[in-house]
């Protein structure tokens, strides 16, 4: 499996460290149901068989965090973007 890093080009996945599902967002700790939401955030996963947006860190390369869209059944990668861009977009969307 090779990951096309936006700054370094296509590299073997052994250069990257994996964090998992990129859709998880840390809940608001002051919300009244914060405890239940944190339990969901820390432990529960969609774990889809198919397209998954996931976080990879280019540890042996440019040290960028990436959001990679990969099919978990075939390892086919359909999109890569810097995690920063994804986070800014999420922030703008509120």
């Amino acid at each position, binding site marked *: 499996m090779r990951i096309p890093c936006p700054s370094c080009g296509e590299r073997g*996945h052994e250069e990257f460290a994996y964090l*998992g599902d990129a859709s998880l967002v840390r809940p608001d700790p002051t919300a009244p149901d914060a405890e239940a939401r944190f339990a969901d955030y*820390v432990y529960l*996963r*969609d*774990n*889809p068989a198919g397209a*998954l947006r996931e976080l990879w860190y280019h540890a042996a390369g440019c040290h960028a965090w990436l959001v990679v869209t990969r099919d*978990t059944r075939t390892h086919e990668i359909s999109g890569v973007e810097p995690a920063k861009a994804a986070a800014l977009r999420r922030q703008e969307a509120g």
Partner: protein
Amino acid sequence: MTDRYSFLSILKEAFSGQKGWEPVWREPAPKRDYEVVIVGGGGHGLATAHYLAKEHGITDVAVVEKGYLGSGNVGRNTTIVRSNYLLDGNIPFYELSMKLWEGLEQDLNYNAMVSQRGVLNLFHSDAQRDAYARRGNAMRLNGVDAELLDQAAVKKMLPFLDYDNARFPIQGGLIQRRGGTVRHDAVAWGYARAADRRGVDLIQNCEVTGITVEGGRAIGVETTRGFIGAKKVALAAAGNSSRVAAMAGLRLPIESHVLQAFVSEGIKPFIDGVVTFGAGHFYISQSDKGGLVFGGDIDGYNSYAQRGNLPTIEDVCEGGMALMPRIGRVRLLRHWGGLMDMSMDGSPIIDRTPVDGLYLNAGWCYGGFKATPASGFCFAHLIARDEPHPDAAALRLDRFARGTLIDEKGVGAQPNLH
């Protein structure tokens, strides 16, 4: 007709042209409804069916399997059985499993090649020795056998290991002599045959496509062979647990990952037990055919592909070379991958779910094979009596939200633990 395997039956069949053997199990069409439908015809599902029939007298049971019986992880593991756990929630459960292994072949009337050849975990530093001594003490306090060996004792058993490795010198090991290996396919076949004999329907090539829930209660499953009604639906779908549970609207504390295993060409007798490398992640034994059977870490990313990637193969083989350099010229014969239901604390789940009549057996990480008998035994108990078996009482689904994790590794919520 000959339906019991024994020395006499082999002799009888030898003199009558081998014509009396029956098929090992029937191939029934699914009935309209059952008391219990088990989703998943792997080791755990088949064991559950066997113990439901044998221990609880519930024989109106179907096991539905999307492929063929035992096509998943029960035939993809490295066949190791052991009960060398540290934590209270785990030790009694895995020891129950070990005791069931010891009586398995008589119980099933099936040769599963249970071989208690010993499992040796090596340690490579003073700190690791202390941790293993603690683990051994915890085991012995729970009535499990464990023995701490010094370097001289290990050297006597395995003279060819790299004891003077500059980074990871071998100082000794913790051995569980009752641990060992079991022929994994035979476990699936033996449980299938025993369950079938008691009237359980084993339905192959029947994929579950939906779980029907009415008024908060599971009433059956939609399958590729039509609707099958059930008073109780029991999930034992291993790496596909999240997908099946999602059909009933549940999200699980599980990620699916791929684990690879390897076997070498057959060589002369060389390693007589199971040996694990304590400084990396590598475990090895030798099959009765002579192949070295070994494995290591999961690939480390979510996967539903039953195949892995090359960097992990390199990593596993490096572990092997650090431990026993003499395997360097042995050629790899085959390698394969299986889907692991990696739970967030490294321990399994055997519990009811928020949906009435829906039971869950999942989260085995990559330790599911050794647990097969106890998993089936305790899951059957839960399904039949609606209360957890005492030895599996800690393996609850809500332990994550309650903060009562069974975290053998002690590193917090991660889906990459054992």
